[in-house]
């Protein structure tokens, strides 16, 4: 049993459904029509490009090419975090790349290696979709965590400086902010884990079922991917914040305004 292929013309016709949300936006004068239109065009172009590219990647199934693909995904995620958090590119590109790499690689290779016992760690069929899911969640968690961390320090500057005045080292003064930021970044995954299966069938499970697998196999994959996502987000968010701290504070322990884009 395999998933039914979708005819390109039929898919083009399916876009007609978008008349409903666009109609709603027009009627309520929600001012994001242009933005939504760009998002739909980008989604189509990006996915088509990835689709064509993945066909080649899957056909060749070359470990080096798969590694390169993962590296490109990590670099794009890295740049998205820097843009999403208004950080200076040169200061943060390397530490955030390391944080994303660690958050993605640890659960991914534990998944493909010990869990699936695949002979090749870099099989395109597993590494690319599972790596992509973990990385997508790491990206979201890093943006939430980093923004939360620096905004809290800016908003509660007095309390932060008071801790420094009371003798705290930088790590000690930032600890309460790190704790709050990690909590904010992890909460969405915790909430998803608590309601998964009851509120919605997750994407991974739907994909495996559509691919023709037994629902129980799909559920086992889903459980493993949730553990992978939760572990990956925990690793990446704490590393991202800790590694960014070095680039964003002055030697006096105060926040360096030059670390952020205006």
């Amino acid at each position, binding site marked *: 049993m395999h998933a039914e292929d979708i005819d390109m013309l039929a898919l083009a016709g399916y876009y007609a459904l978008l008349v409903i949300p666009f109609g709603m936006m027009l009627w309520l004068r929600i001012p994001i029509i242009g933005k939504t239109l760009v998002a739909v065009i980008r989604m189509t172009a990006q996915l088509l490009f990835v689709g064509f590219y993945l066909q080649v990647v899957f056909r060749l199934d070359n470990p080096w090419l798969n590694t390169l693909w993962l590296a490109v995904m990590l670099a794009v995620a890295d740049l998205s975090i820097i843009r999403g958090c208004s950080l200076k590119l040169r200061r943060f590109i390397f530490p955030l790349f390391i944080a994303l790499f660690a958050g993605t690689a640890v659960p991914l290779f534990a998944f493909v290696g010990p869990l699936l016992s695949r002979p090749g760690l870099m099989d395109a069929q597993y590494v690319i979709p599972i790596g992509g899911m973990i990385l997508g969640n790491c990206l979201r968690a890093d943006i939430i965590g980093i923004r939360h961390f620096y905004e809290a320090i800016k908003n509660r500057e*007095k309390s932060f400086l008071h801790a420094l005045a009371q*003798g705290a080292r930088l790590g000690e003064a930032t600890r309460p902010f790190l704790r709050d930021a990690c909590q904010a970044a992890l909460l969405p995954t915790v909430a998803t884990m608590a309601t998964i299966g009851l509120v919605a069938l997750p994407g991974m499970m739907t994909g495996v079922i559509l691919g023709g697998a037994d629902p129980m196999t799909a559920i086992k994959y889903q459980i493993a991917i949730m553990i992978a996502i939760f572990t990956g987000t925990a690793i990446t968010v704490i590393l991202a914040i800790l590694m960014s701290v070095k680039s964003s504070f002055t030697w006096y322990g105060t926040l360096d305004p030059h670390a952020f884009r205006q």
Partner: protein
Amino acid sequence: MTVMTPAIEMKDVLVRFQGKTVLNRFSMQLFPGEKVVLTGDSGLGKSTVLRCILGFVVPDEGRICIQGQELSTGTVWTLRRLLAYVPQEPELGNGTLEEWFKAPFSYRANLGLRKNLDRLPELLQSFALPRDLLRKEVSTLSGGEKQRAALIAAFLLDRKMFLLDEPTSALDRNNTNNVLEFLSKVPDASILAVSHERTFLEIADRIIELCPAGEDHAR
């Protein structure tokens, strides 16, 4: 004759924010055991003086010495441990007041001072704060309670140099007198306070008035 090393010395300190001069070649000395009050209209950089001494604002020019040691990236973390700071309208964060008092003693620099927490009941009494306040969330405290809590926290850390930024602005006359009486009794304490309170000015050994032109007058 021996020359006494100032507890705090600022020499020709120039601070600019976004092109505006906040402190214009400001100089002052605070000697051990001395009580100096900084006054002047708002916006003249009184709080900036304290923030410079703590290393929170880095001067564009000039130098700051604490007990003869120049404040720099290499010394700031050690020199800060000699200072007790009470900010204007202190922000105490989250948690109960008791947790807030205990937090600084979890810092490596203060681990050896944990025993000072035994003085907490006595200090609460001196500053007319009820003991059951310790169980209250800090976010629910009044401005005056926060100010007195910040003062108590400063005394618990056993430091000899106090930087006080309008420490009694939210206190009534009785509580202000309590605080001043307490401050005047702390042995060997060097105090640099920003204040407009008349009673505060009365206990000062010296008053430095900040003026817009940067010509500061000592009385």
